[in-house]
């Protein structure tokens, strides 16, 4: 009982596109209230692994468990109903308003509860609250990312899966995104964040690194930094 329950776990995942295999037995897990960063370079297979976990790509081999359920063959919408939310690299519907984006994100919630949830989220994101009727496409990159987070959280998930929240953001906004996410982390939300930006390690209880479609490292941030070759690979310019 010492170990917290696993919110999600993926084991032995193999998959790919057409004949080209991308993942070669990759796996990871996230425990309750834990935030996990999946670190890897462009093309390492991070997005693919996330897609298998959220049900957007089939696994050729391996399994995905969500809480007590084996969800390997499940569609994404069913997984979302079970408390998983996914924020893709794009993260929003640019042609819908801010309000509509949140409503779509919280589509499975009962009407009154969604309304409460949206007000709660607008409290976290005052910038968005001021412009509820504006099209998401008219927002700046940083605001879009905030909306993406809010949209994913609209369904009140227990686990938030994010694909490169730093993508396309200037450093200032990266800091802001990390700040927002750390507030949700404190509130007990479990998170799985795929990133190549090491700044996100600030959020990490645990780190996995992915390279060539395989997990190379699992451990704490301190352990990662202690490993010379990994440090050279992931701490960019150093």
């Amino acid at each position, binding site marked *: 009982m010492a170990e917290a329950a696993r919110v999600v776990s993926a084991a032995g995942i193999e998959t790919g596109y057409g004949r080209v295999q991308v993942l070669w037995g990759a796996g990871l897990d996230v425990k309750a209230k834990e935030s996990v960063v999946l670190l890897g370079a462009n093309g390492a297979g991070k997005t693919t692994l996330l897609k298998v976990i*959220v049900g*957007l790509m089939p696994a050729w081999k391996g399994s995905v468990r969500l809480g007590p359920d084996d969800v390997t063959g499940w*569609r*994404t*919408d069913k*997984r*979302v*109903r079970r408390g998983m*939310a*996914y*924020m*893709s690299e*794009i*993260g*929003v*519907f*640019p*042609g*819908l308003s801010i309000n*509509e984006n949140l*409503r*779509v*994100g919280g*589509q*499975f919630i009962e009407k009154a509860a969604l309304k409460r949830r949206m007000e709660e989220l607008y409290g976290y994101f005052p910038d968005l609250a001021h412009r509820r009727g504006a099209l998401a496409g008219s927002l700046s990159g940083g605001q879009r990312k905030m909306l993406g987070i809010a*949209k994913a959280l609209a*369904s009140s998930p227990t686990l938030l899966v994010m694909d490169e929240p730093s993508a396309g953001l200037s450093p200032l906004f990266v800091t802001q995104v990390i700040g927002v996410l750390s507030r949700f982390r404190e509130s007990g939300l479990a998170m799985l964040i795929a990133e190549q930006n090491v700044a996100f390690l600030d959020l990490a209880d645990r780190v996995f690194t992915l390279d060539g479609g395989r997990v190379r490292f699992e451990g704490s941030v301190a352990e990662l930094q202690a490993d010379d070759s990994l440090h050279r690979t992931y701490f960019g310019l150093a």
Partner: protein
Amino acid sequence: MLPAGKPVLTGAIIAGIVFGLYFTLVGLGLNLVFGVMRIVNLAHGDFLMLGGMAAWWLFTGFGLHPLVAALLVVVVFVAAGLPIYYLVVPRLLRSRDSEMLSLILFFGVSQMIEAVTTIGFGATERSLPPRLLGVGPFIVLGTRLPKAWIFSAAVSALAVLLVYLYLYRTRLGTLTRAVMVSRDEALATGIDVNFVSAVAFGISIALAGVAGVFAPFILGSITPNMGVALNITAFAVIVVGTLGNPLGTLLGGIIYGVSLMLMQTYLSSWANLLPNLLLIAVLLIRPEGLLGRTVRRA
């Protein structure tokens, strides 16, 4: 059928707008399907023809008024659209170039519909008495128009309004627009994209069916092989009005209706060229339509 009296030009424009409303209905469903699924239903004109055949059959066989026929057609066509969607579209969308392949596939569907209808109803022209939709002319700004035209235009306007309300005022409509914005993001958000699309597909062919019910009054008559020409017309309407934007169809429909009436007034023997030339011209000159979106190769 030329509007009599008063300045001929005004008459042509007014009749064109009335016609344009009808042609909006002709293209509306096609555009909805394109917007949601990025596929071209090249059997759209044939579903329209089926709606017309149904109206003719229900009237001559059972004496049903076209308005009743329209309601029946909506129910039956939506019900038929869902299984058709699930049978072909999900598999189609998994292929590499689904837009192109959809065109070929629905071309096949179009041929099947045309063949079955010809076998069942024969190849002869069918028409319905215009008096069904009101006797005597209706006068707009001094232009006399058949009541059946006004009636058809009013039903079309109602259909456009209902589609608008569906898309902007219902939960499923919001999800539908989400899928239109980005199918991938919709999947990632956990929207049941297949269900949303199937409903859109059903609505689309129901719209075609309703347009078909009124086709005998607007186009004069219906035949099993009218689908091909109607497909080109419907495609011209939505290309002019902007692909993938159902409400842009209204703009395309009006422009098409007015140009058609002007052609019929001043150059009547060449009026059949219009949809073809309009389609080609818009694709080449402003392929994104009047409101946006690019269809050219890189």
